[in-house]
């Protein structure tokens, strides 16, 4: 249930301070586009940011730089020594 990869935000609608507005983001992962709710996301994302999604709701957002660093992190780990991995 919890195996999440960050998904890229391609569109945002609604007003972060108004729960009655339709708080939605369109996200894209590997070419698949879908809508997710933004009602409970920690920081309101902008287009280009990434979000972690659970049961149709974004629960965490990351700026692009942070997300890309994290997405490639696991691959990068391969080239490092264990000491560096943990620093």
């Amino acid at each position, binding site marked *: *249930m919890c195996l999440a990869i960050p998904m890229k935000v391609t569109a945002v609608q609604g007003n972060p301070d108004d*729960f009655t507005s339709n708080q939605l983001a369109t996200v894209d992962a590997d070419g698949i586009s879908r809508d997710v709710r933004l*009602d409970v996301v920690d920081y309101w994302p902008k287009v280009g940011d990434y979000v972690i999604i*659970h049961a*149709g709701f974004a629960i*965490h957002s990351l700026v692009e730089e942070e997300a890309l660093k994290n997405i490639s992190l*696991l691959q990068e780990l391969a080239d490092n020594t*264990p000491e560096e*991995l943990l620093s």
Partner: protein
Amino acid sequence: MKHLDEYRDSSLALPLVKELQNTVTKPLTVMEVCGSHTMAIFRNGLRSILPQGMKLVSGPGCPVCVTSASHMDAFIAMADIPGVHVTIFGDLFRVPGSTGSLAEASSRGAKVDIVYSPMDALDIAKNNPDELIVFLGVGFETTTPGIAATILAAKNQKVTNFCVFSTQKTMPAPMEALLNDPDLKIDGLLCPGHVSTIIGAGAWEPMAKKYNLACVVGGFETADLLKALILLARQVGSGDIKVENVYPRAVSWERNERATKMVEEIFEPVDMDWRGLGIIPQSGLKIRAAYRDFDAEVRLDIVLPKSKEPRGCLCGEILKGKQTPNECPLFDRGCTPATPIGPCMVSSEGTCSAYHKYGRDE
């Protein structure tokens, strides 16, 4: 070290596996709290490469597994009420209560739909104005905010045929109950990834201090898991006990304020019945009186039945990390994923189903 060869090709994991071997200098028991971690650990074969002295036990973090028999029976009884249309997350469908399952209720005509999100349940309500749509809230901090947002949306959109039966549970409380149990010795916690997204990694700090318990928040990939285990072993080895977060792509130190506010608006703490653990004070969430129109227990006047656990099933002890499925005489005999006796065999995150899928000898 049985299957280390499998890791030889993986330049990614091998250095970490080696580092883990070197790091474990004294025996330690780590509890992985989250059912998704249990599955990820098995899927990645990590149990077979654990160093001598390191023991992993599963905890009470599979939401379906900790749902009490009495709640399951209430769910099934509710599904049988004419005009009620029950919506659930998929894992709940085949969990046996004392007298059948939601799957069986469905085959005798009860309306039971599996949804991906509570918002989908609200859409079903809008499309079926003659039915009362009940969403069964079975989950932890990760699912509660979305359910709260859905109730608020129902209110704002004046949808009157939607309500929630909340058995939502909150996480640090059952861990305290386990840590106070003298029979159980845990040195470290692999803290649940996405529960921590909501409550923040910092939420584990009081427990780390009070119980001198190594706490590491980890993700679900092989390298995430190995890193978390290495850090746990290091903490126990050095005695420098603290909370560390190796899952920063999903977890911050602080809690998610927007989600927390949403949850506090709709829910209040309540004593909650956990399978295996019994009633733990203030470890659950019920819908506040101001939103009682969206509370299925109020609307349908539900009284929880006194139910018994399935006979011979050890799920309760397994959820406490005290026994393993291997010790259950029914495991893989009477009880399989096709013919489950307890919830730990049904849920895709359950410990018994993990042992069944990935081999009992590990």
